[in-house]
């Protein structure tokens, strides 16, 4: 809808400018033809033909023919002169209409191309994330099998070895490392196991309000602001998956503000879409990773404090919804992520 309004405004503005230009050109064109001195010359020409006839009667037919041709021209000019304003208006209208049509078609094609490019970009990102997802699933599987075997062997080794402080310390250390690998694998699996959304009509404002209350309980020092829109906003979404996206975004925000900042939710209708902006008061996304922020394993956290899968998972979920997730703005004063969903 916004695109259509923008297109219409561009077309209207361009047409007005063009109309003004044509008014000058068309008026000039007609006025050249309809100038009184042009008509005066034609009248003189008529009288000249009559005088020539009197001087040269032998060629009367020839002069008569020229006279008639000139008279017809004068008549035509007189008829057009009587309709000058109407001719001018129609001429301008036709040209302006043609121009408007051309601008409209060009704008429409340009908009369609933009939309196609956007769709292609989203499809490519979805394909890339799906490939990552498949790789994660395989890696998780490949790690889990030897991990289980290693645990069993350690258990057996511990049972075969006589008890001793040194042995127990080594066994515990191995267990600890294996648990770290298991944790790593679980995170890996969470990306691999994102399900396809089961889309239903959901009231986004209600869902956000419920989420705010739930998340506030987990992060008591975090300020969560949400001004609900005056009327319900329904979107096509999988409630659980959308909540997971909000958890990921807000957890990032909570970490970015040490759990003491502010997260603001804002809902806006945008044609056949609904935007949910999630803004925080954190330190922003470093420029070096802004372009890759939604790729897996891209994170600002220290090693061992998260694998950087949350945003990749979130975007995958929203792309699967037919929506999108974008970094709308970021600065040292905070970042805003935009969730885009289909409006119902």
């Amino acid at each position, binding site marked *: 809808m916004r695109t259509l309004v923008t297109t219409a405004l561009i077309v209207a503005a361009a047409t007005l400018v063009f109309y003004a230009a044509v008014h000058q050109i068309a008026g000039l064109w007609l006025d050249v033809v309809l100038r009184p001195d042009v008509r005066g010359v034609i009248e003189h020409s008529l009288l000249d033909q009559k005088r020539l006839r009197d001087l040269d009667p032998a060629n009367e037919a020839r002069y008569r023919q020229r006279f008639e041709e000139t008279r017809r021209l*004068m*008549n*035509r000019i007189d*008829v057009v002169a009587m*309709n000058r304003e109407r001719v001018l208006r129609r001429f301008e209208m*036709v040209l302006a209409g*043609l121009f408007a049509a051309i601008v409209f078609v060009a704008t429409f094609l340009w908009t369609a191309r933009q939309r196609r490019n956007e769709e292609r970009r989203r499809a490519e990102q979805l394909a890339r994330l799906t490939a990552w997802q498949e790789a994660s699933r395989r890696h998780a599987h490949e790690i889990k099998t030897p991990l289980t075997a290693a645990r069993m062997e350690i258990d057996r080794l511990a049972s075969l070895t006589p008890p001793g402080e040194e042995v127990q310390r080594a066994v515990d250390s191995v267990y600890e490392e294996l648990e770290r690998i298991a944790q790593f694998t679980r995170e890996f699996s969470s990306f691999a196991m994102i399900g396809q959304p089961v889309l239903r009509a959901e009231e986004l404002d209600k869902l956000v309000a419920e989420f705010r209350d739930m998340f506030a309980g987990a992060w008591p020092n975090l300020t969560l602001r949400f001004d609900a829109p005056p009327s319900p906003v329904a979107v096509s979404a999988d409630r659980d998956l959308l909540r997971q996206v909000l958890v990921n975004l807000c957890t990032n925000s909570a970490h970015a503000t040490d759990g003491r900042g502010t997260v603001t939710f804002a809902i806006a209708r945008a044609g056949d879409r609904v935007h949910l902006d999630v803004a925080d008061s954190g330190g922003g996304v470093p420029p070096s990773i802004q372009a890759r922020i939604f790729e897996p394993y891209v994170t600002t956290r220290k090693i061992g404090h998260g694998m950087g899968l949350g945003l990749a998972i979130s975007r995958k979920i929203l792309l699967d919804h037919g929506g999108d997730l974008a970094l709308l703005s970021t600065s040292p004063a905070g970042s805003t992520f935009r969730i885009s969903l289909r409006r119902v």
Partner: protein
Amino acid sequence: MVSIVFALLLAGAMSDRPALTIAGDRVLVALPPSILKQKEVRARLESALTTTFIVKTKDANARIEIRYDLWDDVYRVKRVDAAGRTSQQSVTAAQLEAWWRTPIDIARRGGADAIDVELVVLPFSAADESDARQWLSKSGGARDPSADSKSVIDALIGTTLSARPVVSYRWSLEARR
């Protein structure tokens, strides 16, 4: 503005009204020469265009066309009466008034002897209009005028030309036998 002009002309013409006569089952009208002397009409008659007078009744129309021919210094006049009969001739300026007075068949006689007659004076004829339209269309960009291929633009601009009445008269007349 048009209505004011119309009212003034109507008031002026009241003293010089057309004469309605009945001939068999036909109604004829003789138009007053004062019409030709009206400033607006006089100006049209002096142009090279064909001034057209449409005589309208409830059921039929008659048409009178007058064009000044500068070459021969005569008026080319033509009448097409309500029965479809056409007559044309050339008359001098001195003969024009007499020719104008000649009654023209404007309708079949109905039940009543009273009839409403409207006279509309157009500055040019349909032929003048058509000729100017073609000329304008060709000027508007038809690449090959002989091909008779009119673009939409040509057609749209061409159709703007139309003869708007110079003056109109309306009378309610009673027939004289």
